[in-house]
């Protein structure tokens, strides 16, 4: 366990170095979030009653999504891992006395976390002080906030476990570019990145709620905004645990199969 912590720490500190990039990124995410909110507000102006989430819930959903973008978005892959598979440096990785799945898992989780930590606070602070209808609200209660944290951690796990499947697919396809774009687009849409899942029409919504993607950003963001609470939150979190375990098991199995017949590319 301690070696995974070490990998995690090195990555974390490493990612914290890119501060100017983080500043530009923050400004982008803030502007992006504001535009999303303005678009929603135009719809709510026509008829607020036609939507499944209140405007302030939607606003909180979007601000939290932008603040923790790096944690939740699947399109954010580790170039290094793809490169190690296509360039052949995977041979070194295999020589290390660390389980490859665990190493890659820690690496991506740490990178995402570092990026999110670096970027979230300024966005959150501004989101808390913008004028009223667009302001980020606090969670309804302390237990609700704790549930949010729990769901956020699980969601990070599910996102990373899912991207592991994409990395592993590169063992078979070598050029993972296409697979990458397609899987990220589908996953993000079904996780509620474009519009929150409650906005999906039935039966679309009912199906999407059960898929592993609903265990990604959908769960923590809706718990934070107060759209899911109480028993529903517990049910959602159990579903997250289920998908996390399933995806990790599938990933490990796929990895084992891939490594059995791995051909190292060049030298």
């Amino acid at each position, binding site marked *: 366990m301690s070696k995974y912590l070490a990998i995690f720490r090195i990555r974390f500190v490493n990612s914290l170095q890119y501060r100017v*990039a983080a500043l530009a990124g923050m400004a*982008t995410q803030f502007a992006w979030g504001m535009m999303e909110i*303005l678009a929603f507000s135009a719809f709510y102006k*026509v008829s607020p009653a036609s939507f499944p989430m209140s405007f302030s819930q939607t606003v909180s959903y979007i601000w939290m999504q932008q603040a923790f973008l790096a944690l939740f978005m699947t399109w954010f892959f580790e170039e290094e891992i793809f490169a190690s598979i296509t360039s052949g440096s995977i041979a070194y990785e295999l020589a290390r006395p660390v389980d490859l799945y665990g190493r890659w898992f820690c690496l991506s989780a740490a990178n995402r976390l570092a990026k999110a930590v670096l970027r979230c606070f300024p966005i959150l602070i501004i989101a808390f002080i913008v004028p009223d209808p667009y302001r980020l609200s606090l969670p309804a209660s302390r237990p609700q906030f704790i549930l949010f944290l729990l769901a956020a951690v699980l969601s990070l796990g599910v996102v990373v476990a899912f991207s592991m499947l994409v990395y592993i697919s590169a063992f078979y396809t070598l050029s993972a*570019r*296409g697979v990458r*774009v397609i899987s990220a687009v589908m996953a993000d849409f079904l996780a509620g990145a*474009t519009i929150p899942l409650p906005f999906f*029409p039935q039966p679309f919504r009912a199906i999407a709620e059960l898929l592993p993607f609903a265990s990604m950003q959908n769960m923590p963001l809706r718990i934070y905004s107060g759209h899911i609470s109480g028993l529903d939150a517990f049910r959602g979190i159990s579903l997250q645990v289920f998908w996390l375990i399933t995806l990790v098991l599938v990933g490990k199995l796929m990895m084992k199969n891939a490594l059995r017949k791995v051909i190292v590319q060049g030298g």
Partner: protein
Amino acid sequence: MLRLYAKYFAMHLKSQMQYKTSFFLTAIGQFLVSFTALLGIWFMFLRLHEVEGFTFQQVLLSFATILMSFSLAECFGRGFDVFPRLISNGEFDRIMVRPRPIIFLVLASQIEFTRIGRLLQAILVFAYALPTSGVVWTWDKKLLLILMIVCGSIVFFCLFLVYAAITFFTIEGLEFMNIFTDGGREFGRYPFAVYGKKVLRFLTFVIPLALFQYYPLLYLLDIRPDKHYMMLPVLSLLFVIPACAFWRFGLSRYKSTGS
């Protein structure tokens, strides 16, 4: 020069066709990216019939206009989009010693055919929205639509140029420009008036995205049957001047990264 570009064009096409599976998967991916945006709009309109007075089909007109201009600009102006790479690996130094205009060479250095996925989407959306949007397509409106797309591509292209010119100072690409390029594409799915007066004013006078999207749309829909509105897409081309000036300024400050 046109013949040389045709040669580059054929060369890029040939090289990208070497990896057919990857090419098609990426093109499909590009298609899906904008398809999910489309689904998002549709899901919202299942609950309402109009936003800011625009119906679903009318919103799709602006969605398709923006999408088509953006994909054209990105397909041909890709060299500027990946410009930080040209600078950091020293490739740009090689471009500077060649006896052809620099903008031309950067333009020819990359052509991204996978954007055909997005282009196809724009065409399909037009095919649905043109007849159903309630616009009477007289010759002036047809002309205006073409102007919107052509001028739109040029404005987006200029944004890529500005993005590349910033790289002369920062070496790394500046993520903030994404809010105008990718953001312009994403948020242009609704007529820009949806975002309120301040945003609209900004997109009229600073970054003229609304000049080829929102205002001409008003003319198409006969909300503002004023012939002056037909000239607005052309007016957006004024953006070429500061963009080119900034590019030249950046170029004059260029220091090689030396690798």
